[in-house]
């Protein structure tokens, strides 16, 4: 391994610009003739719009336009949902319109009502205050559990019972039969708490129209600019794609919330054409809380059937998912395809059945947030497994080992085919790194302080790199799920890599450059990675679902293979040898078994200055692109062990030790992988202990709409982490990689809650809801004592 090759801890190429203030995020872009937008939003969860009077706003200083729903009706379509779910009766999901500006009705606090454009931000904001909207406030349905009860208001006319779909996966009869003969059944009811993603960079967009060639450019804080363009042009604005360029420059975190096509992006793009001026909008934090797609919000009843020895016989899960007021871009796939398919976990449970009811409520749309369905599934599985072990008196590691899948490939009863893994190896390493052997001693020390100590396990699996396109299509995906990559070798041998993946913190400019530099044997400084621009990158599906290296990296490898194949032909000509005798190694093409060679740069130069070149057989130039459509998901897995201390007087939980051992397959840059795990763990621990999106159940007002009310982890809420890896390379992609971006957020919440329940077991506490705030933990202790 070279100092910068695959496997090396290379410091990031992108860091210097971020550390010196030279990054360029969407709000940093200032265009000639720049104007500014402000969105007037609904203060009500559910209301009819009787009239809007914007005359005073239009006359206010600096105001260029005020647009409302009336202005766009018939011109701008609603936002599409990218995944069609077919319900248990074979009917398509209820898919109500999702207007870009409200059409006669608002359906959640923050729903966009009017767009004000002015010369300055202050002018736009001040003018918005002059808009008079006459609302007829309607009763709101806020809690998913209430949504289909008789007498509840309908969020959309086409779904009078507020149900978008009821969907199921698995063998119901087989599952029920297995439960009927089970020696033991463990049952849990819980709510997977609703979260607000909170990338530190708020969403932002800057749209412009060029009269010269009738083209549009949209800068937007987004994770997948080609998908954004496709959805916006084809479905919303009816524009030809080649006239629209979408640039997602430096993006300050995404975590799923910037996958989606949002109303503001389309509204700005349309309005820029009306005004022939660039229009910029940046959300303030309150808007982020109100309008970024939220995550999770599942209410679940889950049961695990076991035999007398603790072998899993079947799992039965019923979940109610809150979709919010509208179907966000991939909302429908999250509680279904990305959730129920993961319920096998690392275990050979023979029968699984899952039924999901997804409902509309007068709350912000809910969609993918780091993990997207997989944290919810892991929480179901790992809370059940830990509870069952406790009920049966089996050691937590042992019950897992007894049920681990050990033969690969393994076909689960919920559609997935695991290609490879070694869950015992992960468990062994986790037990050792976490010093489980020393736990009893630590518990004694904790007790001596008058505190409680608990240990919790979580053995998660996830499915990354959603694929392949044809199967995803059969399951309802309305997009392909491949990735594109282009390798442009310049005449002097340096390389620009164009990738459809998008980095918003992941460090692709470094890790992808490592892959290319390693394969081509050229210095990493000679490789630059370009992403996030539909005008420069051939195509792309973007970054989500931990897919970048496994899918995007594979496309790059395919393009590199083409470069090397062509390079061999050029080298054969230069070396006067046969193509078949040329080998490429350490940055040089040589005749096998000889020291006759030509360096990579020499081949590149010959390709662009083809004086001595087989022009009769080969085109000049050295530029190749490739599309890669995976044959399967990848299946990272891990075991997390969490140790906590609780002060029974206050209910305060402190994480004392957190060990995460993951099998991500091969690793390109361990430093970046560790960073991804740390960040995921922080978000998962945040879910378990701190974070909760809460609406007032009557009014539908968002109560957790600021950082004062929504508890996001700060540095002193978290411990340092112990991170380890094992490796079974993915069998079906060329790098043998699996994906690491979401693992921490998927695996950690049940580890934390299992640890808390373990600490409280002496009181007979069986469950503590997330987030396990001091108040809730204290209450659990009091309830148990009573």
């Amino acid at each position, binding site marked *: 391994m070279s100092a910068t090759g695959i496997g090396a801890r290379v*410091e*990031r190429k*992108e*860091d*210097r*610009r*971020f*550390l*010196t*203030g*030279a*990054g*360029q*995020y969407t*709000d*940093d872009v*200032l265009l000639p003739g720049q104007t500014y937008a402000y969105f007037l939003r609904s203060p009500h969860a559910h209301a009819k719009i009787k009239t809007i009077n914007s005359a005073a706003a239009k006359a206010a200083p600096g105001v260029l336009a005020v647009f409302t729903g009336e202005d766009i009706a018939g011109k701008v379509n609603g936002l599409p949902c990218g995944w069609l779910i077919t319900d248990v009766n074979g009917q398509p999901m209820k898919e109500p319109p999702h207007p870009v500006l409200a059409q006669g009705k608002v359906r959640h606090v923050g729903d966009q009502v009017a767009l004000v454009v002015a010369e300055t931000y*202050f002018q736009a904001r001040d003018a918005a205050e002059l808009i008079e909207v006459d609302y007829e406030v309607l009763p709101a349905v806020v809690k998913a559990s209430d949504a289909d009860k008789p007498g509840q208001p309908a969020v959309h006319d086409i779904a009078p019972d507020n149900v978008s779909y009821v969907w199921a996966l698995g063998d119901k009869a087989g599952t029920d039969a297995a439960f009927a003969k089970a020696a033991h059944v463990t049952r849990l009811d819980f709510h997977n708490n609703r979260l607000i993603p*909170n*990338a*530190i*960079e*708020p969403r932002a967009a800057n749209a412009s129209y060029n009269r010269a060639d009738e083209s549009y450019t949209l800068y937007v804080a987004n994770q997948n600019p080609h998908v954004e363009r496709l959805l916006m042009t084809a479905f919303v604005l009816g524009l030809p794609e080649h006239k629209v360029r979408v640039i997602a420059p*430096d*993006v*300050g*975190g995404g*975590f799923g919330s910037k996958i989606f096509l949002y109303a503001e992006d389309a509204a700005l793009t349309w309005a820029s054409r009306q005004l022939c001026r660039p229009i910029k909008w*940046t959300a*303030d*934090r309150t808007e982020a809380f109100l309008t970024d797609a939220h995550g999770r919000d599942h209410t679940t009843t889950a049961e695990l059937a076991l035999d007398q020895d603790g072998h899993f016989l079947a799992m039965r899960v019923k979940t109610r998912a809150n979709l919010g007021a509208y179907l966000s871009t991939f909302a429908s796939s999250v509680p279904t395809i990305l959730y129920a398919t993961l319920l096998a976990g690392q275990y050979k449970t023979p029968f699984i059945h899952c039924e999901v009811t997804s409902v509309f409520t007068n709350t912000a749309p809910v969609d993918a947030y780091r993990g997207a369905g997989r944290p919810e599934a892991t929480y179901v599985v790992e809370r059940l497994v830990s509870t069952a072990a406790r009920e049966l008196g089996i050691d937590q590691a042992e019950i897992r080992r007894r049920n681990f899948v050990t033969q690969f490939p393994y076909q689960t009863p919920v559609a997935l085919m695991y290609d490879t893994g070694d869950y015992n190896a992960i468990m062994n390493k986790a037990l050792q790194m976490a010093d489980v052997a020393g736990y009893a001693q630590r518990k004694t020390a904790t007790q001596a302080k008058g505190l409680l100590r608990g240990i919790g396990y979580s053995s998660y699996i996830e499915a990354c790199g959603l694929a392949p396109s044809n199967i995803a299509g059969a399951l309802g995906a309305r997009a392909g799920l491949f990735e594109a990559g282009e390798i442009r070798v310049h005449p002097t041998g340096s390389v620009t890599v164009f990738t459809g993946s998008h980095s*918003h*913190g*992941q*460090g692709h400019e470094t890790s992808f450059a490592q892959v290319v530099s390693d394969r081509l044997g050229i210095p990493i400084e000679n490789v630059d990675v370009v992403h996030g621009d539909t005008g420069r990158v051939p195509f792309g599906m973007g970054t989500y679902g931990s897919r970048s290296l496994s899918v995007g990296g594979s496309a790059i490898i395919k393009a590199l293979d083409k470069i090397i194949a062509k390079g061999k032909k050029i080298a054969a000509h230069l070396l006067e040898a046969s193509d078949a005798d040329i080998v490429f190694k350490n940055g040089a093409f040589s005749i096998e078994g000889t020291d006759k060679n030509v360096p990579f740069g020499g081949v590149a130069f010959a390709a662009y200055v083809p004086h001595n070149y087989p022009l009769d057989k080969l085109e000049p130039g050295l530029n190749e692109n490739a599309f890669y459509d995976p044959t399967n998901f990848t299946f990272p897995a891990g075991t997390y062990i969490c140790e906590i201390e609780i002060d029974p007087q206050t209910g305060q939980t402190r994480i004392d030790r957190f060990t995460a051992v993951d099998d991500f397959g091969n690793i390109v840059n361990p*430093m*970046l992988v*560790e*960073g991804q795990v*740390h*960040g*995921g*763990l*922080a*978000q998962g621990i945040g879910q378990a202990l701190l974070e909760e999106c809460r609406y007032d159940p009557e009014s539908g007002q968002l109560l957790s709409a*600021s*950082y*004062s009310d929504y508890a*996001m*982890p*700060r*540095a*002193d809420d*978290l411990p*340092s*982490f112990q991170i380890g890896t094992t490796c079974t390379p993915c069998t079906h992609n060329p790098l043998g990689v699996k994906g690491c971006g979401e693992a*921490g957020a998927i695996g950690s919440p049940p580890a934390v809650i299992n640890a808390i329940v373990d600490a409280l077991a002496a009181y007979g506490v069986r469950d503590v809801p997330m987030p396990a705030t001091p108040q809730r933990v204290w209450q659990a202790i009091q309830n148990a004592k009573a």
Partner: protein
Amino acid sequence: MSTRISMTVNGKAVSAEVEERTLLAAFLREHLRLTGTHVGCDTGHCGACTVLLDGKAVKSCNMLAAQAQGANVTTIEGLAAADGEMHPMQVAFKASHGLQCGFCTPGMVLSAVELAGKLKNPSEAQIREALDGNYCRCTGYHNIVKAVQTGLANMG
């Protein structure tokens, strides 16, 4: 209503006529085009907008530009040496992978630089407590803490 403000930013005297309600963060970003100062929340919670005001870390979204009248302001653009050599804290953040998306980074680095004057050889717990005013959503703080430890040590 507008007002004339003057201050020193990254060693240069600057002066401008701005609306009275202009925040220091907006003045730096919009008027001086120093876009390294980021605004993550505009409520003083996230710390992305942190700059050094006469050596003290302040949240520039939480004060008016006019309140910095006559002050000496350092933004992230002014932290490296004139020849481009990064400050030891910047170097430490890079070496420790103390940043991912980079959005909280300018505020985080400047808050960390201010610590040098406050804490000698701080413990991990002290660093975590001292960074309480800066959110990071990417790193889980693990590598930021390491970076700050290294950076403070190398600042001497």
